[in-house]
C-alpha cells in the first residue's frame, strides 16, 4: 500500500478548503505530502494573542496507523511544548496508545490550538512552567505574552 497517500491527499484537500479556525496549512515542498507547514494564530483570549506561530506537522510513512508529530518552529512559552530547539508538543491524542487510525489531522490542529487557550499543566513536558502556570498565573501570562511579542511577531 502506498503509505496512506489517498487518505493524506483527501485530508490535505479538506483542510486547505475548509481550515480550522486560526489555522493555515501548506506543504513544505510540493513533492512531499508527509511534511506540512502550519501557521497558527494565537487565540484571542490567551497570552499568545497577536502572535503567529509556525509549526511542522510530520506524518509517518505508516500514517494513519501511527500518529503524526507536531513541533513548534516558533519559540513558545507553554507547559506542554518542550522549551528546546525541537519544540515538540505533547498532545494526549498523539500518543500511540490513544491515537486511532480514524483520527483526523484537522482534529489534531484544533486540539493543538485549544491547548494554547487551555494548557494542561498536569501532563506537562516543562514541569517548571507548569508549576508556574498553576501557582502564579500572572507571572506565567506575562512571560508567555513577552515571548509572543519577542518571537511570534514578524
Amino acid at each position, binding site marked *: *500500500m502506498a503509505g*496512506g497517500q*489517498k*487518505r493524506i491527499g*483527501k485530508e490535505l484537500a479538506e483542510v486547505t478548503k475548509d481550515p480550522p479556525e486560526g489555522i493555515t496549512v501548506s506543504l513544505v515542498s510540493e513533492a512531499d505530502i508527509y511534511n506540512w507547514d502550519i501557521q497558527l494564530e494565537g487565540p484571542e483570549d490567551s497570552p499568545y494573542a497577536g502572535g503567529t506561530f509556525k509549526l511542522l506537522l510530520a506524518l509517518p510513512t*505508516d500514517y*494513519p*496507523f*501511527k500518529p503524526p508529530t507536531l513541533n513548534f518552529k516558533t519559540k513558545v512559552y507553554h507547559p506542554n511544548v518542550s522549551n528546546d530547539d525541537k519544540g515538540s508538543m505533547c498532545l494526549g491524542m498523539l500518543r*500511540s*496508545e490513544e491515537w*486511532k*487510525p*480514524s*483520527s*483526523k489531522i484537522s*482534529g489534531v490542529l484544533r486540539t493543538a490550538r485549544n491547548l494554547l487557550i487551555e494548557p494542561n499543566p498536569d501532563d506537562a513536558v516543562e514541569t*517548571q512552567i507548569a508549576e508556574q502556570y498553576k501557582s502564579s498565573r500572572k507571572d506565567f501570562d506575562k512571560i508567555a505574552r*513577552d515571548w509572543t511579542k*519577542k518571537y511570534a511577531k514578524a
Partner: protein
Amino acid sequence: MDSEDEFISGMSSDQEMDDDLEDSLGEGEWEYLLLCYFDDDDDQGLFDTQDKDIKSSHKPHEVDFKVIGPREIQAAQDKHIEEAALILGLPTETCAILLRYFHWNKDRLIESYMDRPEQVLENAGFGPSSKSPPKAQVVPGFVCEICCEDEPGLETYAMKCGHRFCVDCYRQYLTQKIKDEGEAARIQCPKEGCSRIVDSKSLDLMVPGDLHERYQVLLTRTYVDDKENLKWCPAPNCEYAVECGIKKRQLNQIVPSVQCTCSHSFCFGCTLNEHQPTPCSLVKKWLKKCEDDSETANWISANTKECPECGSTIEKNGGCNHMTCRKCKHEFCWICMGPWSEHGTSWYNCNRFEEKSGSEARDAQARSRQSLERYLHYYNRYANHEQSAKLDKDLYLKTEKKMTNLQTMSGMSWIEVQFLDQASQILQQCRQTLKWTYAFAFYLQRENLAHIFEDNQKDLEMAVENLSEMFEKPTSELSGLKVDMINRTAYCQKRRIILLSDTAENLRNGVWKFTVDLD
C-alpha cells in the same frame, strides 16, 4: 522486639487464615467471604501455597514473597477459568475472555454476571448477534474511513458497534497493536472515540496467522499485569514473576525488596533495583532531582536576572544596582527591575526598599547556595557508592581469579576459598544499601532520630571500608587473613541488618520526619 514479632505474626496469621478458610469452606466461597471482610478487590493469595513455600520474614525490613514460574502462572490462570466456568455454567473459552475483560477479577465478573448476564456478555463481545460467527462482508457504496478506498467489492468488517472499515485496514491496525505495542486483551475499535474492545472472535478472524502465537503470549501476560499481588521480574528475558501481598498504599511504611530465582533483587513496589531503606516515593523524588539537577538551576537564577526589555540574561557581579544591559543598552534597577531613569528623585525610596529586599535577596542567595552544598554533600556520597556498584562485575571477576590463584597457591579446596566470593557479594549488597541511605538522609529532618540514623550509616560505612581494603591485599596473604575476612564480612552484614531493621521499624511506625511529603 515485641512489636516486631507482632508485625510478623500478624502477617503470617493472615496467611494461615486464608488457608484455614479455604479448607473449611471450599474454593470460591472463601474468596467471597474474604471479600466481605476486607473491602478489597483481589486480596487473596492466588496460589495454593503452604506456609513452607512462602519465604517467611524474620526481620522488619523483610517481606513475604514467592517466586512463580511460567507453568505455575498458566496453571493459576486455568484454575481461575475453570472455577468461573463452573460457577457461571459457561464454556471455559468464554470464561477466559470474560476474565481478561474483567482484568482477572473473578469476583467482580461473577457479581456482574449474576446481575446482568446479557450486558456482561455483550460488553465483552458476545452479543446476541454474534451467535452467528462474525465475518467479512462486501457493502455496496462503502468508503473506508481509514484508507479512503471505495472500489466495489472491497471486503469490510465491523464489530457490534457498527464501525466498519476495510479488512486490510482492520488487519494492519491489529497487527500493529500486537506486534509493535504488545497489546492484545484490550485493543479498542479503530474508530476515534469508540472504546469497544476487539473481542477474541474478531481477533481470530482478523489477525494474520503468523501472529497468533504472539497474541497468545500477550494474553497470558495480562494475567500477571492485572494482578496487584503479582509482578514480572524486570531482569531481561526472565520469565518468572513474584507474588507479594504488599499493597500500593503500604509503600510509605514498607520497602518491599524481593529476589527472583534468577538472583535479581528488585523492589516489588516500583520494580526498580532494590533500594532499601529508602521508600519508593523518595526514590522517585531523588532520581528526578538528580536528573534535572534543579538545585544548580536555582543557584543560577539567584545570581542572574533577565533584562526587562530584551530578555537576555544578565549576571550581577558588582555591588551597584544601576544595571545596563550589554545587548540592548537598557538601563534598569536591579532591585525593583524598573527603568533607571525613574530613580532620579525617588532614589531614597528605592534605597530603603533595597535594604530590606536586598538583604532578603542575599538571604535567598545564601539559602540557595547552602541548599546546593547540602545536596552535593549527599549526592557525592550517593554517586560514589553507585560507582562502586557499577564495578560489581569487575570486582566479582577479580575475586573469581583470586579464588583460583588462592586454590593453586595454598592448596585450599574450592569450598575453602568460598569466603572470598561471600565477602564480595556482601560488599556489593552493603554498597547498594549505603548508596540509598544518602538519598534517605537527604530528605530527613534534622532531629534526634536523624542522628541515630547517621550513626548507623557511619558504622556500616566503616565496616564496608574495612572489608573493602582486604581486597587490595596480595593473594599470597589472603589465606592467612581468612578468619579476619570472614569476621569483617559478618560484621558488615550485621551492620546492614541493624540499619535496615531500625529504619524499617521506624518507617512502619511512621516516626521518621521527612522534609518532603511521601506521596
